[in-house]
């Protein structure tokens, strides 16, 4: 057991910090082109596609280096790279399951954000029970004709390509009739409608496919072999942002401390109220434990141990923590905590959480974490079955199969 960063990692962190100091955008990035330009700059510096093999345009870096970059970016609230779904999950899936032609055609342009990617998995009636998805893909020899609807699609309006799970055989048990195919989003048969969330913004969208075309050459793996591929895709979805996430929590905590020094109760700063102190002590312990757990995950990744089902514990832990965290922040801040934009007349109390947006924004967003990428309930099923070895539940669809 040794939790010191290696001299190489410390040097890498220092170099990253220096690079960010020089290169961080001076003004807010407004247009997609500006965000793409910043993305390319990050890529050329070696800070995007870090875990990808060099032969596919990546940097062959270590999970620790990737986490350090995310952490340093969080520290200075640098705008993130784009195409996160593509680079984090879809690209690695193509690397593992794709053909040489697919790798050549898609990977480099994904890394440089020349082409933006989205994930077409969830459907209105296929959420936690993803395998019950209904979007049909009919085999037309050299291509599929796709009909159906997807939902919760991030980056939908800006996406050029999507990774699609679709039903290619409705007659076999549900897990066995699903295929995975790459879909061109820029075609007449694909319509994207933004979906407004409880935050008021529209980061997700609905995608309608009406006789859309997907080429056979864009099939990933075998026909009806898509479910196993979807499992690897989900598996890539955890780990790299471990440190950056915690740094953002700490930034928000420091903002909260600032506010509790400004707000008064009985003529005394809120921070001197024992009831407030006790709750802040509790949540900060919780926060620190998220940090230790992140280091533990990184140490395992660094040694090449695939976290597997144990990554469900991590996801469950930090998403549930986020809800408790921002709930507490809003309790302490009172009505100030409910401001969606920082207001000038309240300037003595800074309601921003340190990230773009206020505590209210973060509070609302925290409700999403325990739903996306497998809800908390699904994570607990996975932990129960695959980590603790508890018997599978008797389910109506399993009885049928």
């Amino acid at each position: 057991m040794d939790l010191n960063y290696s001299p190489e990692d410390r040097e890498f962190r220092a170099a990253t910090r220096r690079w960010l100091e020089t290169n961080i955008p001076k003004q807010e990035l407004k247009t997609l082109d500006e965000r793409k330009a910043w993305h390319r700059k990050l890529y050329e510096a070696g800070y995007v596609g870090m875990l990808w093999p060099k032969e596919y345009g990546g940097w062959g870096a270590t999970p620790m280096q990737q986490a350090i970059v995310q952490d340093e970016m969080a520290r200075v609230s640098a705008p993130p790279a784009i195409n996160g779904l593509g680079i984090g999950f879809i690209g690695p899936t193509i690397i593992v399951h794709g053909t040489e032609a697919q790798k050549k055609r898609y990977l480099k342009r994904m890394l440089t954000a020349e082409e933006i990617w989205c994930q077409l998995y969830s459907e209105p009636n296929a959420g936690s029970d993803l395998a019950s998805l209904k979007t049909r893909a009919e085999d037309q020899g050299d291509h599929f004709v796709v009909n159906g609807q997807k939902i919760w699609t991030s980056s939908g309006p800006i996406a050029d390509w999507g990774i699609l799970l679709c039903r290619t055989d409705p007659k076999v048990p549900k897990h066995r009739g699903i295929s995975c195919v790459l879909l061109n989003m820029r075609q007449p048969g694909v319509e994207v409608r933004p979906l407004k969330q409880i935050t008021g913004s529209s980061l997700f969208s609905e995608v309608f496919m009406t006789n859309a075309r997907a080429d056979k050459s864009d099939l990933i793996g075998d026909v009806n072999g898509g479910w196993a591929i979807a499992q690897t895709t989900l598996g890539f979805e955890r780990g790299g942002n471990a440190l950056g996430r915690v740094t953002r929590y700490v930034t928000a905590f420091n903002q909260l401390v600032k506010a509790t020094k400004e707000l008064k109760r009985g003529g005394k700063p809120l921070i001197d109220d024992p009831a407030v102190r006790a709750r802040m002590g509790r949540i900060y312990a919780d926060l620190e434990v998220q940090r230790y757990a992140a280091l533990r995950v990184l140490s395992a990744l660094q040694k090449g141990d695939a976290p597997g089902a144990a990554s469900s514990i991590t996801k469950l832990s930090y998403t549930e923590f986020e809800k408790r965290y921002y709930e507490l922040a809003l309790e302490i801040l009172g009505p100030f905590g409910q401001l969606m934009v920082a207001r000038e007349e309240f300037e003595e109390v800074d309601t921003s959480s340190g990230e773009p947006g206020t505590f209210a924004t973060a509070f609302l967003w925290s409700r999403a974490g325990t739903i996306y990428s497998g809800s908390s309930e699904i994570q607990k099923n996975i932990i129960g079955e695959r980590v603790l070895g508890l018997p599978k539940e008797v389910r109506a669809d399993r009885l049928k199969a």
Partner: protein
Amino acid sequence: MDFSFSSDQQLLKNSARAFLDEHCQPATVRLLWDDPRGESESMWKEMAQLGWHGLSLPEAYGGSGLGMVETAILLEELGRAAYPGPYWPTVLSAAAIEAAGNDAQKKRWLSAIATGDARATLAFLDRDLDWDPAAVTTRAEKSSKGWTLSGTKRFVPWAHVADVLLIPARAPEGPSLFLVDPSGAGLKLSPVQGMDLATRWVHLEMDSVPVAGDAVLGAPGQAAALLSGLLRRGAVGAAAEMLGAARRCLDMAVGYAKVREQFGQPIGSFQAIRHKCSEMLLEVENSHSAVYYAAWALDAKAEDHELAASVAKAYVADASRKVCGEAIQVHGGIGFTWEYDLHIYFKRAKALEAMYGDVDYHREQIVRRATR
């Protein structure tokens, strides 16, 4: 960056598990409930022979020179077995003597502790149960032969079997730490038992207890920082023990959920039970991260070692209370019976929660450090 145990550390863990599975079964713990001493002399000696008592003592005193991580590994296993005895108070006292004692004091006590020939304990709490070492009210007055101590010490673990008591008291110079002979004049010991019958506490009444001039550990008036450090070390150790108790309860609950059938199925197949067990595992794994981070931070003298100790104690206290309690819930009625072993660990975790700084104390330490 490596958060996993080294092969030596894993070996230590395995051998501790094997020893305790054989020598410290629930039946052993139950037998000692009615024992006036409350511990087994033979187990104590065997543990010493395995090198446990001197684990973190210098080799010159018969120790192995290992750190808090190894000590926490042992304490987790001891907690898992609900080991009854003065192991942690003795080892913590040895750390105090090693850190602040003079050569004569070290010679007198450290080798004897390493060989299992001496037991020691530390009296953190005065009459008011204030964990702040600077708040000590027991008085130390200078006398012709050295000092006299007067005051009350409460909930001193295992003082009735100790060969030496480490007593904090307020000297004219400030908080000081004294080595006191438990059989000395003016000292009255009364045993106290809580709901965990295997945790033994003692109340001490001191009425002008004479103490020799050379019985001060370190310089008079300089003990506040030493005691704060010992309290933190004690807290990390207690957190490791609570973690062990929690993991034992989780294992029992999961094992039971696999075999207990209701409605024609193992109850572990129901989400209501499975989700509860998953939440328990989450708390146990987070507790593991907290305990070993804090133990490593102590060894490495990391910048945040003080914070980490309080985080570990505060977090694991909540987590172990929840996990051990939920294990009873998963078991249903059988888990509430005296015959079933769950309450042994449930009560042990609860007893440790109140020791080495309770949750409120450590949360306050956390806030102080986090809001600076």
